[in-house]
């Protein structure tokens, strides 16, 4: 089959479990994030060239590829660290603008994050964002809404963003039984 003419039907394959590790260098405050498939993610400080890395957080996650059922094209999403649902926390954010524009048509906007530092690591291309968006929209049964996936570059201020992250960190309820 001619791959350029294929109306791809994506399926998720080659899922790998692991951890998204966030580290900070205590000398220069640079933050780095990466995916680790090691059974026990690193916890102790270590030196790497000029940097002294300390773990800030780790969250369980998965990495995956998407493969077309028809033409067998396989695309890796190793550059994806997490997806986040925009909850319109800041009116001057470009992601919020997109959400507002799509709300008449029930288009929900998700932000795809890469690994930090963004300028030093390979990031998801526009083409890959489109493939990811196609995959999740193909999975949906509802015809009343669809999703749009955009780059983290559109976020106004990532540090204060209040969106809903799809990652397994700080999720277990700390409520005492009396509060049930």
């Amino acid at each position, binding site marked *: 089959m001619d791959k350029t003419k294929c109306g791809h039907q994506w399926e998720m394959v080659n899922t790998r479990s692991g951890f998204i590790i966030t580290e900070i260098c205590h000398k220069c405050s640079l933050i780095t994030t990466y995916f680790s498939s090691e059974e026990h993610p690193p916890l102790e400080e270590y030196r790497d060239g000029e940097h002294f890395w300390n773990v800030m957080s780790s969250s369980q996650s998965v990495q995956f590829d998407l493969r077309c059922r028809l033409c067998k094209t396989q695309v890796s999403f190793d550059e994806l660290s997490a997806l986040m649902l925009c909850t319109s926390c800041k009116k001057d954010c470009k992601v919020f603008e997109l959400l507002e524009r799509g709300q008449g048509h029930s288009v929900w906007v998700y932000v795809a994050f890469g690994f930090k530092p963004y300028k030093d690591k390979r990031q998801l291309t526009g083409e890959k964002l489109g493939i990811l968006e196609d995959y999740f929209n193909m999975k949906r*049964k509802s015809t009343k809404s669809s999703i749009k996936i955009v780059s983290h570059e559109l976020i106004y201020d990532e540090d204060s963003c209040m969106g809903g992250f*799809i990652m*397994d960190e700080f999720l277990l309820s700390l409520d005492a039984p009396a509060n049930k």
Partner: protein
Amino acid sequence: MKLKDIIGSLSLNVLTNLDDKEVTGVYISDMLSDVMSNAKAGNLWVTIQTHKNIVAAANLIDISAVIVTQGTRVPEETIDLANRYNVIIISTNDSTFALSGKLYQIGIK
């Protein structure tokens, strides 16, 4: 099977707005990344998680409803967000295990 029939059969508590939907199966997990990669559209998602981020995962996959087990209290913030994104959240005092048995008994497989 329709969601409203399941809710009626098992006396589940609906915490959000409710649209009737076709239920295609059940996925049990407390990990959002697992749901994102393995759950299917139309599945009921059974979990003890109540953080607002469950709405992000449920909406992405087009889950038919999230069922929170063990009578765990769901924060208002989560319910408000779910209503905004048309995600249905239901609760039950049953454990995940007991609920799974009941769902199987009424024909959800």
